[in-house]
């Protein structure tokens, strides 16, 4: 049990840097497309790790199932919203950033 708990902790700690880098990317990247990239890609990996960690620490199957559901929903929501934002940006004719 303690092993699973520790493994979960490691997973969560692994996930955090992804979140952080995703957020930094969101704040620092030059245009909307790269920001979207940073946000959805990095965050989804981070989320996967965190959910995995929490699932390992969970006491019941019930909780694991709920965590999985959350993971799935967030994945769907983030990919769909990423798509929608990018589509809206394209429609507004916002040019992707290129290295000057």
């Amino acid at each position, binding site marked *: 049990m303690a092993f699973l708990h520790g493994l979960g902790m490691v997973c969560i700690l692994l996930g955090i840097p992804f979140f952080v880098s995703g957020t930094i990317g969101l704040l620092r990247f030059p*245009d*909307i497309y790269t920001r979207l990239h940073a946000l959805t890609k990095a965050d989804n990996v981070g989320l996967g790790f965190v959910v995995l960690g929490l699932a390992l620490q969970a006491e019941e199957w019930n909780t694991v199932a709920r965590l999985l559901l959350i993971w799935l929903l967030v994945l*769907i929501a983030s990919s*769909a919203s990423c798509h929608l934002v990018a*589509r809206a940006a394209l429609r507004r004719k*916002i040019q992707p950033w290129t290295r000057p």
Partner: protein
Amino acid sequence: MMDVMGFFDIVLALALPWLGWRLLASSDLFRAVVLFISLGLLMSLTWVRLQAPDVALAEAAIGAGLTGALFLSALRRLERLSESERRLEHAGKREEDETIPPEKRRRAKPVAYVLSLFLLVVFVLLLGWSLGQTPGAKGGLGPAVAGQMGQSGVQSQVTAVLLNFRGYDTLLEMMVLFLAALGVWSLTRVRQTQQGEVPGPVLATLVRLLVPLMIIVAGYLVWIGSSRAGGAFQGGAVLAAAGVLLLLANVTVVRQVPAGLLRWALVLGPLLFLLTAVACMGGGGNLLEYPGQSAGVWILFIESATAVSIGVTLAALYAGGRPPAPSAPEKDNEEGPGSGVDKGGKA
């Protein structure tokens, strides 16, 4: 571990006013609204930290989510009207009043600004001092609530307060919500400009996938409300989110809901609540005094009805006006955009 949480608390408590400051100071309205939404999410985290899960759910769904959506759609409408403000990426030009010449503004600003800032700081310090000075009442009505939980018919204390001990407040609150819908409907009509937009495959799939799930979640939240965090408002907010999604995706079903049905859906919750409250008087009880041991059933009944109405009402608020007229001009009429101006003249 406690120290980590303590550190987290400090960061959170500092981040809230900082975000508030940033959002009001930003010259870009869109950025301000985005910051407002993130502030709402942080608030919701704060509620969790302060052991108020019910409020956290409501804040995330209503305070951050729906209010944010309202702001965004209003912003879009304002932009479409003015065509001047910001674009997605660039900080737009300031919308400060141009009527005052800039040199005058600069002259007027420091004194008034410093003065008002000073007054505010004094106000905060005084209030903070008085808050620190006076010990709070021990537990407030908490013990009283805990003592009467047995007769409330539910296990969750918050739900017991909301729908039993202080159910009258909630009844009036439903009226506020109804009034908001009434106000929005009386002011304007939904624009029909988006009619042509096609949702696109991703959004359509998302809607097909999520809306049924959201309805289930809403039902679950209402059901679980009697024993844990959740309840009519949280469930209603999820329903409203489903409604907003449908509106965004421009699903034709939403546009084809008959106006009469929509009106009934708006009224359903408050009306049933009111009738239940009065029906309680039938057995010789007071207003809202649920007879005998049946409080739990009544509460669930009221919660289900109000959740539907809350959902419909919030979605209607998002839609931002009464439904567009069917092709034939109906008698309950409209002044088109801007035509209020010329009509206003001749009283």
